[in-house]
């Protein structure tokens, strides 16, 4: 890999490595430098009353990591577990502290090399996802891959924003159950 990137560097191109994965059939990618490892889905311990996008906690060799359901995070239906479902352990920076989190994705594809100039700005017209989350787009064959800006996606404020929405949801559930 490094040999290739060196050759490419000679061609005056800055290369970035990205790990691609799918969510609901769409393609996403994150900077490999942020990825610690990829796991098969381990035993998940749910934390009661937590927002829906937090699936629970997992035990990674003695470390307790929060597990984020990336699909719920992006407003999709929760992940359904299949043989392809994976947990990507990533390192993100929140509130000046680097922490590790697990993120659930439908499937992991590959590590790809992307030249700087091949990254296109994302089209703002179809703003299905918050634009700060998207670092850019990359066209591979017929598919578009969204390159994610991780620190933004998983920042606490962003999480809190979501949480508020979710708490309203759980409260609503609460009331429903009580009326039952």
């Amino acid at each position, binding site marked *: 890999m490094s040999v290739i990137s060196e050759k490419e560097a000679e061609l005056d191109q800055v290369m970035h490595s990205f790990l691609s994965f799918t969510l609901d059939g769409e393609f996403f990618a994150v900077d490999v430098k942020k990825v610690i490892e990829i796991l098969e889905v381990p035993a998940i311990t749910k934390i009661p009353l937590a927002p829906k996008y937090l699936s629970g906690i997992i035990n990674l*060799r003695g470390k307790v990591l929060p597990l984020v359901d990336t699909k719920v995070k992006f407003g999709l239906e929760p992940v359904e577990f299949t043989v392809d479902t994976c947990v990507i352990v990533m390192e993100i920076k929140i509130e000046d502290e680097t922490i590790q989190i697990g993120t659930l994705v439908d499937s992991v594809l590959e590590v790809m090399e992307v030249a700087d100039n091949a990254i296109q700005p994302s089209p703002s017209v179809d703003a299905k996802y918050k634009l700060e989350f998207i670092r850019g787009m990359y066209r591979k064959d017929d598919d578009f891959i969204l390159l994610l800006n991780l620190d933004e996606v998983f920042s606490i404020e962003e*999480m809190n924003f979501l949480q508020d929405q979710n708490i309203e949801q759980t409260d609503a559930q609460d009331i429903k159950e009580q009326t039952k």
Partner: protein
Amino acid sequence: MSNLRDVYLEEAEELFKRIEEALLLLENSPEDSSSLIADVFRSMHTLKGNSGMFGLTKVADFLHNLETLYEKVRSDHSLLSEDIIECTFKSLDHVKKIIYDPEIEEQENIDENQALTDEILKILKRTEEVSIDLHSIEALSGMVSYLVFFQPKHDVFEDGTNPILLLDELAELGKSKVFSHMESKALSDSFDPKVCYTSWNIVLVTEKGLDAIRDVFIFVEDSAMIEINELFDGDILADQEFHERLPEVDLPSAPLSFDDFRSLIEIDRPSASGDTEIEVIPETTDSSTEEKTEKTESTPEPATKKAPVETKKTSTSTSSSEEPSVYKNKVKKLFDKNKTASSIRVSSDKLNELMNNVSELVTTQAALALFTKNNFDPTLDAISDNVEKLTRQLRDISFGMTLVQVDNLFSRFQRVIRDLSSQLGKSVRFVTEGGDTELDKTIIENLADPLMHIIRNSLDHGIETAEERVKNGKPETGTIKLMSYYSGAKVYIRVEDDGGGMDPEKIRKKALEKKLISKDDNLSEKETFDLIFAPGFSTAANVTDVSGRGVGMDVVRKNILDLRGDIQVESELGVGTSITLGLPLTLSVIDGLLIKVKGTHFIIPLAEISKCFELDRKEISNEFNSVIVLDDEQLPYLDLRKEFNLGMEDNPEVTSVIVVHKLGTKIGVCVDSIEGEYQAVLKPVGKYYRDQEFISGATILGDGSLALVLDAYKIVERKMSKQKVTA
């Protein structure tokens, strides 16, 4: 660079502490002054050096004056006076500030810097006069005369060594007289200019010690013959007669030996050690007494050196040292610590990582043990046993590493009490006990503020003024005792004062006034004292600088509870008050009860559980007001399934109810089943779950799955607040 700066700041912090500790001991036990002053001086010197190295030149400059002052004090202990110590404390505080403002830009710091520098210089000037007037003789104490014989090998010039430079360097150490000798060959025809024929005898008078002399020759050790002998304890070169007796011939062919010099000195001295001289006096004739006194001057005896120090003791010990042995022990300990300082500095991150790995090892080992039991194989069994043994040792060692002696914490208060008591005009003796008790580092860090508050309260409200104390028949000096001891699985820290104590009547009145209790409430004494922990409660007649703003004790209690500790007050009017904190040994391991609710494991800390029993679910499921009756006691209860929205399907017929208590409130908690006791290694669940405060952490079970550790207090609180909202 910022990394290095951190190291510097950390080290500076340590040095500050060291200096303060030594100064406080100096105040209390001046008889051991020499080692303490030397310690202060060394620390100051290191601090100055470090500051200079990091480019904080202004800090270094400031410290330089202070250092000079202590250099003086070091050579003449009687110079040390209260105002010097006071000034040092102020200067230290100043330095603590300016290491964060190294260019000294803030006006406040500029002024302070100037004022303190002036003060130090003033003291310096005064001490200079004093030392010239009265103590000129003593200033020479520590001077030792050495005879240094230095004979380079013949080929020494070949590696570019210039012996003369070494002699110059030697001369800088103190007073010296050099005698050179030349081999006779040098004068013959076979003279070779590339060969060194010369050797030297140097009489050197210095206070720097043997090591400093050796350092001079460090690079020529292999290419020269060097002999260093102690010639005389004192300044031999100050003795005129010695000069007269010295050989007049320069460049003798054979160098004088050590014994030759020795005999030169000893002609009229019965002993070179100089401590029997006074006894000799009666036997000597009048004509020589003059000479004798001169000698006693040049070789000050330990006894005369001590005298001024001892008189000083009575003058400075205002804070009264009734237990000098305590201080002596402390002084000894301080220096014992120096000697056995075979410790290294490790970042707490690394320690945490080690702890993580060790606890993971413990769980892996548990899994191995389980596997071995199920698949019997004698070889595997032996291996597994060994792994278990090693794991346990490793665990004990690594857990031990995170423990810190509470002494670290206690010594901080010395200074505070000293400053505050003089500010309040009270005379207070501070005694600590059990400083070697060990506690988790995190607990110690979080204890500093609450303890500080308690001690301030004792000082401000507890200890009466000296007049009042005398009137009540108590000793003038009040005592605050800070002690720490183990008992069971807990560490207790107790603050005791022999002050006025708390008046339950006064507390009642105040509580009524603040509407914390109603008139009909019949409170026991203990309940009354517990009122001081209520938010917004303060009995201090007037709010002082030190305490009395009423934001104190409730915060103290909260902090202690957060550490999973408890707090107790005892007080007797006119006799004193004592506050006892009970704390867990470590925060990372808790004894808990493992329970199961709908497939998920939870752990409730044992300390919060009062009892458990089983109930038929039918008995409680239709209860409208959520109250169950147990042992003729009505208990509110909550069902964890309901509480956590886990759903009611496949609910077991018989449920277990655990009665948890916190802050006097009891509540029943319904769970599916109780699995047993479990020693949980607590791990944080991370920032994402910070709104789920009822989870204090997670722990890894033997099979690698996770269990959630519940904070019973938070659950109760949650339940209560919810009830209020719905009501």
